[in-house]
């Protein structure tokens, strides 16, 4: 018996628009910016708005300018090579995102050196920077393109939630209560 072949993704005319629509439907805030510099400004502005005092960031070239600007504003940047306990004190976790999946409105994050899962998991607010050209139509395309897998590849589709107690949906069951995406269009 030969192996049945899974179908590909349904083509979408505008994956970016679909991504935004679907992400917002699951409670992810999407802020569209034109350039990475704008993304940096918005990230810093968000930190200021939320009066963030401690932030956990990925240790990557993409995140470096954000880190430096936040530090300049007096925000404590938690050691990205630190322990879980360290990260648990963060009020915001700022990461990149490898991919976006339009069909489900999901972010896709890879674990790796300098890219701990803790950054997108422990703080009540998760902020992710995603380039719009990394958005794929659906899961089939993602799995085709994702290449050799890291130790952890996580699809994130909204803030942490549970409706276990009295059927009432509650956010921030264990993970973040809020997820915001800075979508870099350029």
């Amino acid at each position: 018996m030969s192996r049945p072949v899974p179908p590909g993704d349904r083509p979408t005319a505008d994956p970016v628009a679909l991504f935004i629509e679907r992400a917002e439907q699951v409670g992810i805030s999407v802020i569209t910016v034109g350039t990475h510099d704008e993304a940096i400004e918005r990230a810093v502005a968000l930190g200021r708005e939320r009066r963030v005092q401690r932030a956990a960031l990925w240790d990557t070239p993409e995140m470096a300018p954000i880190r430096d600007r936040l530090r300049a504003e007096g925000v404590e940047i938690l050691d990205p090579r630190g322990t879980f306990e360290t990260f648990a004190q963060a009020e915001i976790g700022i990461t990149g995102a490898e991919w976006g999946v339009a069909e489900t409105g999901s972010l896709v994050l890879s674990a790796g050196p300098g890219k701990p899962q803790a950054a997108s998991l422990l703080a009540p607010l998760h902020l992710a920077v995603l380039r719009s050209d990394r958005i794929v139509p659906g899961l089939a395309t993602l799995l085709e393109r994702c290449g050799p897998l890291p130790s952890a590849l996580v699809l994130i589709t909204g803030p942490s939630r549970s409706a276990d107690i009295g059927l009432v949906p509650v956010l921030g069951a264990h993970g973040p209560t809020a997820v915001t995406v800075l979508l870099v269009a350029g």
Partner: protein
Amino acid sequence: MPDHPTRIDLIRNTEQALRDASLQRQMGKAMPASRRARADAVAELPEWESLRSTAAEIKDHVLANLEGYLRQLESQVSALGGTVHWASDAAEARAIITDLARSRGVRRIVKSKSMTTEEIFLNPALEAAGAGVVETDLGEYVVQLAGERPSHLIAPVVHKPTEEIADLFVRKLGVPRYERPEELARVAREVLRAEFLAAEMGITGVNFAIAESGTLVIVENEGNARLTTARPRIHVAVMGVEKVLPQLADLSVFLRILARSGTGQRSSVYVSLLTGPRRAGETDGPEELHLVILDNGRRRLLADPDLRAALRCIRCGACQNECPVYQHAGGHAYGSVYAGPIGAVLTPAYEGLERARDLPFASTLCRACADVCPVKIDLPGMLVELRARSVRTGLASWRDRMLVGAWTFFTRSPARFMLAGSLGRLAQRLVARGGKIERLPYPLSGWTAHRAAPVLASTPFRAWWKSRQGEGR
């Protein structure tokens, strides 16, 4: 199957469940809501039927080539630095995991939701070996505090209202009485955060295991499984043999159908694809990865041509959400961690028909479950088969044999059939009032306990037809 000798008294359990007004309220709210959510999510995909067929075919392909895919999975996981353990039954699985805990000096364990670990009664064994186990899925945490077992495949504490959970937290955690779900969830989050940070071992289930890459896929909404696998230095993943899938690409089918079927979501909040333990330079993820592959009756089920398709099950819970019997009975009535329609097949298969003989009969064969099963398991057909096996192995009750025996006797010829009618019409004079019967004697008294019974007509159809023929049209 020596773990489970006593018969599950499903009839008594369901009667008890029906008297539990709180349970009826909870289930009466939860199940219709889940049904609506599923229906909406499925209506969005015009290719739904085709996805179901593809999913069923992939699963059947895996089942037909199981050993090959399991070997491939093992070899990939090992190459990644993980250790694969084979457990032929529950006792062996418990021993593997408790030995691991003991040999690594593990005192504190966090667990994310896994029906497979419930199936093997893992927690008591770990406690007995001196390791404290804390369930971290919110529903499972509540169930653990209450000393109960989960009642639904994906909503473990669906049977409990908020007020009871509030009381439970006061009793067990010594916190003030919180009325609102958000407050209770916050209490649990704080307690469990500390547990994640302290635990040396995290135990999870596995939704799908990809043979080509050795990737373990865990699907959840809360983030507790991510925490369970990111923080503790040892990760133990427990999977039934049937969870293996050939390739990563297959996930595009199964992830689409799992969340939509179970909760009506396009995707669960977190889908973790875990490929090996932590790598050089990484600061989270387990240092040690162990995969326990469990048989516990699955290969025996695989060898059963009438029932083997039940192994396609992806544990979405849609059949439970759809089943009116399950809605009224609740999961605990089934006496096993697998309840509802899939439970009525798996529990007899894994625990024996002797013990679970009533489960396949707790159904009107309405087929609602078969309609929604994302992998097209013919559950009603399997229930029919299990009923036949029940009778063939002499498990039918005296009452059933009598009723069916009488029915067959009187329907073997028109003459006997008419005789039965005549006898019935005579007998019913004793009990019929105003064209109805309000009290039928044993063995039919169950009918009139809940509704009036019709009377046999004074002129059966065939008598009318005969006279009509005699008169000419």
